[in-house]
């Protein structure tokens, strides 16, 4: 007996009739909110009527693209967002960003065996690569075997855990065997390391191919100049009718946020990412621009080293949670665009809403009581490490120093170059730390992070040295339960238990904030924050065409 899912109908879960699976109707904190305008002047007034074809979009981006090979990721979103335009996985994260669900990609039908160990994919009819070659089962097997080989898939080898082998059944059918059930398997192959690449071209000359690659995505790379820009042109063989609308997209790299904002202001670019929070109000006042925020699994995670006896004390950790004035942090530093978390992890699928799992309230008296109950009633001194070069970490450090100081925890701020912060983190050489400049989940389901924090003895539970006890078992069960409905029931319990324990602290959920010229329409961002520009069009093209 197999479960068959038709992926063409759109949302995978809807086809299955699983109620708990669609995030949008339970209103949970983990819902992906599609692109949302900030401020009243935001709505793109020019975007009325039907999308028109044509035009070039220039996108000024903070992190540069360093590798176009989806399996040798080198620079986080700089690489991911470029590969998202070029390639697609067998399944995809809902490109509209309205849900955190999966939809069909290169595959249009999928069968899963009852033991959750065999997945059979049927490829989309007539799907072709950008060069016109049809996508075959051989390409899929080639891609997935790369994905499963830790020597090739070096960066995301953890995500490939459990992958066994792939077998070509016929030209359009691939059978994938897992070593053990991996509940998040489909989510794991929906992201970049499993993007389908053409076997023939990659085998012929890998280096040459990935300088100017094509896939089944809406765009193909036209030119890639490291450190400067990458340009994309329309994929003439793209499978969605009429899409994409734009002729050309250009990513310009500008690591300095000021340069990016200036580029959009003077019309050199139409979109810029990474709007500094301190500039939100100023940009909001500009009638020619609109700000958009996208909720993504990005968070300000404060990690704690449980080898320090103070931090191994649950009362202390809870006291810290209550001592944080998140409202002040949100207004003061994030200009109100942040969301107060009810989880220690970023906002993820299956998260229960705040009325079921309430966040910690700001309550200094409660915090003081907890400190009094702890093994350290007179307080203690500790350090907080954070990466240099990010204003909001600096400000956050100062505020946390102030707020923890109020309950007797003296925090010494240690700013380090981000390589050094991460390095020390990996060596468990820290008390409190913001370990990464950008702390995000790669997948929308909690499997990855929950396993990292509660069930990874080989990395000391994500370098926390937390004794996760029972919660570790709960996570193990969750990540191996293939049934979606069951998983949706299991997760909120784990979410709640973890929040109560607070082995680490999520200070704030933070969105991506982009700035757009008013001419840009139909920009959607998927639940992981990647831009899906196949729906984008330029309003000025309407005027250009009679």
């Amino acid at each position, binding site marked *: 007996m197999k479960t068959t899912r038709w992926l063409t109908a759109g949302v995978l879960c809807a086809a299955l009739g699983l109620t708990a699976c669609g995030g949008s109707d339970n209103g949970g904190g983990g819902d992906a909110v599609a692109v949302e305008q900030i401020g009243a002047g935001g709505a793109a007034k020019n975007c009325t009527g039907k999308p028109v074809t044509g035009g070039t979009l220039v996108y000024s981006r903070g992190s540069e693209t360093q590798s176009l090979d989806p399996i040798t990721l080198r620079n986080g979103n700089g690489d991911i967002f470029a590969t998202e335009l070029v390639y697609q996985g067998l399944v995809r994260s809902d490109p509209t960003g309205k849900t955190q669900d999966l939809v069909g990609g290169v595959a249009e039908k999928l069968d899963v065996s009852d033991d959750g160990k065999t997945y059979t994919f049927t490829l989309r009819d007539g799907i072709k690569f950008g060069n016109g070659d049809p996508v075959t089962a051989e390409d899929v097997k080639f891609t997935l075997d790369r994905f499963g080989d830790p020597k090739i898939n070096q960066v995301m080898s953890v995500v490939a855990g459990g992958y066994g082998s792939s077998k070509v059944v016929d030209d359009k059918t691939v059978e994938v065997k897992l070593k053990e059930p991996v509940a998040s398997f489909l989510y794991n192959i929906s992201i970049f390391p499993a993007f389908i690449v053409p076997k023939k071209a990659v085998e012929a000359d890998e280096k040459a191919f990935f300088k100017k690659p094509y896939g089944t995505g809406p765009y193909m790379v036209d030119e890639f100049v490291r450190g400067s820009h990458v340009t994309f042109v329309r994929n003439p063989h793209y499978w969605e009718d009429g899409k994409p609308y734009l002729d050309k997209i250009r990513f310009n790299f500008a690591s300095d*946020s*000021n340069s990016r904002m200036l580029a959009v*202001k003077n019309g050199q670019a139409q979109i810029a990412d990474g709007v*500094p929070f*301190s*500039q939100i109000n*100023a940009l909001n*006042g500009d009638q020619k621009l609109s700000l958009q925020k996208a909720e993504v699994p990005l968070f300000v995670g404060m990690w704690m080293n449980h080898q320090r006896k103070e931090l191994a004390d649950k009362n202390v950790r809870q006291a810290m949670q209550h001592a944080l004035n998140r409202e*002040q942090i949100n*207004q*003061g*530093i994030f200009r109100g665009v942040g969301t107060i978390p009810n989880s220690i992890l970023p906002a993820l699928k299956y998260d229960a809403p705040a009325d079921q799992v309430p966040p910690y309230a700001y309550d200094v008296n409660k915090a003081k009581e907890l400190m009094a109950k702890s093994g350290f009633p007179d307080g203690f001194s500790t350090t907080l490490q954070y990466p*240099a*070069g990010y*204003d909001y970490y*600096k*400000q956050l*450090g*100062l*505020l946390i120093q*102030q707020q923890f100081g109020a309950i007797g925890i003296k925090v010494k*701020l*240690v*700013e*380090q*170059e981000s*390589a*050094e912060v991460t390095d020390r983190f990996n060596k468990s050489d820290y008390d409190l730390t913001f370990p990464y400049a950008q702390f995000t989940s790669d997948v929308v389901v909690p499997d990855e992070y929950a396993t990292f924090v509660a069930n990874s003895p080989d990395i000391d539970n994500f370098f926390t040295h937390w004794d996760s006890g029972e919660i570790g078992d709960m996570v193990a069960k969750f990540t191996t339960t293939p049934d979606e409905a069951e998983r949706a029931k299991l997760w909120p319990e784990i979410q709640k238990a973890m929040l109560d324990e607070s082995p680490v602290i999520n200070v704030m959920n933070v969105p991506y904030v982009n700035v757009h010229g008013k001419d840009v329409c139909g920009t959607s961002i998927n639940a992981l924050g990647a831009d899906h520009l196949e729906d984008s069009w330029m309003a000025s093209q309407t005027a250009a065409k009679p």
Partner: protein
Amino acid sequence: MSAAAVTPTPAPARRRPRLGRLLLLRGQPRTVQVGATIVGALVLAAIFAPLLAPYDQNELDFSNLLAAPSPDHLFGTDDSGRDVFSRTLYGLRIDLAIVFFVTYAALPIGVVAGAVAGYFGGWVDAVISRIVDVMLAFPFIVLVIAIVAITGPGVKGVLIGVPLVGWALYARLARSEMLVMREQPFMLATTALGYSRRRAILRHAVPNLIRTSLIYSTLDLVVNLMLLASVSYLGLGAQPPNAELGSVIAQGQANLLDAWWVATLPGLVLVAFGVGVGLVGDGLSDGKLLRRGARA
């Protein structure tokens, strides 16, 4: 002619520089007087920053973000509501301390090394000169970033990095001067009088060599101040929360369009100091200073 431009003219051989007269500004050119007044005022402001600053440099005030300059906040507030004037004063304090330290820590080492190289010549000169060459050919910023990576961000990168490279400049300057000086009668006389080489170098040559280096150091002060600001601009500056002029400016840069004061006013203070020092050095050397260039 062409050789003379890179080989500094020998300093007047008899006297040590008269610091006393210099400090009192008597009989100095007007440029020196004006420059010294600017520098003096800024140095005093830096020394007495804790008394002069109206606010704590790190006091956050989220109800008063990016406020324009007013009697309450002379230089306005930044994007965390901190008083820019107070941060500028404290920043100046750190900056001046660092810049004076790195410049004048490097100077004596460089002068002695240069004097030794020039006096002895031969393999001693060859070794010292090659080390100097390596130092000057090394991309300075790599060194600073590397030191920052070892010691953690903060001013240590500059504190260690600048003297490490900076002495080489003075050494090259002193060496070429020494080459000329060792042939002069008063130096030849030290040998005739049977003075030890150590005495000849330290007591007789160095005091004469140091004058040129001191004048040159005014230029170096400005260069180092710019370097410090640049390093902060690249995000490798002072350990927060403490202010440092470069980082105050770099941070204000993000709000330049809607809050010009955050980056502009501390920038003007930086320029004022540079101009003050520049005028002093220029006056002392009678306009010949900059001609040797920053890396002469």
